[in-house]
């Protein structure tokens, strides 16, 4: 303990005239159990009142605070400075639209992704308030939940080299979302619809297996497993025809 940390933070405010992207350094005395959330707030309150960043839950469950910390996209709120060397570099997530400093617009990207994939249960049945719920076995429920746990933080997109190069690629989070609905028996989308949706170069075949998504996903989602399932499912559909 007793270290003095140096935070090298990317600064750029697009609404400010003539502002240029640059890196500024801030110093901070380390306290026990300091995490990057607390550190950034301290910096903002004491040194740089115009510093922009996003936190909501500060508990690693809302996905707001992803940024590139010492070269690795991850959640700032649950990164302890004790795990890092004295110099800590903070950059905004690449790929997403920069709103200012460390704040990027992941929200809009994920919204568009959701619309593009029609991320909802396609079900033509009317809801009957009187009837008991449709049954589902617990294993299926858990399987869906395992994909549903994605918090839309964007780390997987920021870490995937393919996504950087092909902006139309729906990315690991998008593929995982497809998996979530593929597993769901309530979704009435048929083989053909799935096939046309995912069997594309923007879909599953945009992924060339870099595995960075799986490595950086803060929720440890079984991304590669979902992709493998989708790959075989898609081929299965094609063969059946």
């Amino acid at each position: 303990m007793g270290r003095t940390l140096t935070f090298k933070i990317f600064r750029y405010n697009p609404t400010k005239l003539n502002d240029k992207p640059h890196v500024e350094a801030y110093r901070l005395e380390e306290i026990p159990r300091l995490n990057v959330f607390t550190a950034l707030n301290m910096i903002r309150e004491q040194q740089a009142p115009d510093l922009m960043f996003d936190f909501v839950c500060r508990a690693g469950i809302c996905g707001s605070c992803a940024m590139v910390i010492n070269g690795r996209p991850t959640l700032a709120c649950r990164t302890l400075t004790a795990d890092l060397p004295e110099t800590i570099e903070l950059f905004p997530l690449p790929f997403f639209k920069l709103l200012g400093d460390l704040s990027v617009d992941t929200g809009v990207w994920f919204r568009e992704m959701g619309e593009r994939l029609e991320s909802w249960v396609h079900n033509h049945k009317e809801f009957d308030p009187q009837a008991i719920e449709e049954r589902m076995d617990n294993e299926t429920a858990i399987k869906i939940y395992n994909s549903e746990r994605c918090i839309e933080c964007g780390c997987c997109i920021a870490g995937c080299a393919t996504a950087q190069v092909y902006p139309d690629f729906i990315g690991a989070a998008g593929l995982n979302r497809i998996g979530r609905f593929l597993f769901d028996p309530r979704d009435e989308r048929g083989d053909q619809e799935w096939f046309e949706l995912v069997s594309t170069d923007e879909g599953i075949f945009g992924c060339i297996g870099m595995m960075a998504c799986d490595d950086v996903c803060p929720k440890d989602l079984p991304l590669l497993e979902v992709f493998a399932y989708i790959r075989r499912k898609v081929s299965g559909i094609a063969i059946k025809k």
Partner: protein
Amino acid sequence: MTSLHTELYPDAVSRHGKTSEAHRISRKALRDELISGLTGAILAAFIWFHLLFESSILFGRAAYDKLALLLEHPLPIAHVAVIGIGIVFFIHFIWASRKIPGKLQERKKMMELGISIKKANNRWQQDPKSDIRLRKHFETSLWIWQVRTGMIVLAAGAFHLVLVAWNIFTGMGIEGQTPGISAEIAVSRVESGLWILYLVLMITVVVHMSIGVYRLLVKWFADTWFVRKYARIIFYFLLWFFIIVGAATTLGLAGPWEGVLS
């Protein structure tokens, strides 16, 4: 709840079945993926046999020639193979390179990211006590190496293929030489300086093949019992096993280790 079915992106999902544009695009994408993957797998399997075959030189020229004969009589396996592999090699090159970013700018982006993530591992101290350790990541750089080695394999492999095809079908213009592979010709070729080329080809092709197999396994089977961890073990196994066998073979073909095992 009657009109819940909005179709915001009618192009993304079209419900016209087989003949639709979307369906056509999807089929093509799947076919492309299967072609590059399958040709890669075929080439990988070929290389395994090929390198093992070449390693017979370590048992001496007789063993090597016996095997070579087996491949040419009674069936002209080598003749068919050299044409077949040539075609597969070419197809693989065409289809696999569709994933290589064409623009220099894009390629730079990928490299930067790969390097950045790789470096990141060094800049995160790891607390060995903590259960949640940061996992290492190096697959992005692996992919970049696959592209790089692919390029070298393309050049060196094509040259080699032409050479051996010429050898199999003709006497290569050498007086008294019968068409076909033989230890004598092979060794003389390698000894005369081509060993540099073979060493490079061997290393690059093994690296490329091991990474390729690793990623193929993960891409298609990661959700079965065959998880990434095992794929990674196979990757390291293939890499080191064939590098060692290959290096020994090069030494064998180049002279010093010829027949050491006999």
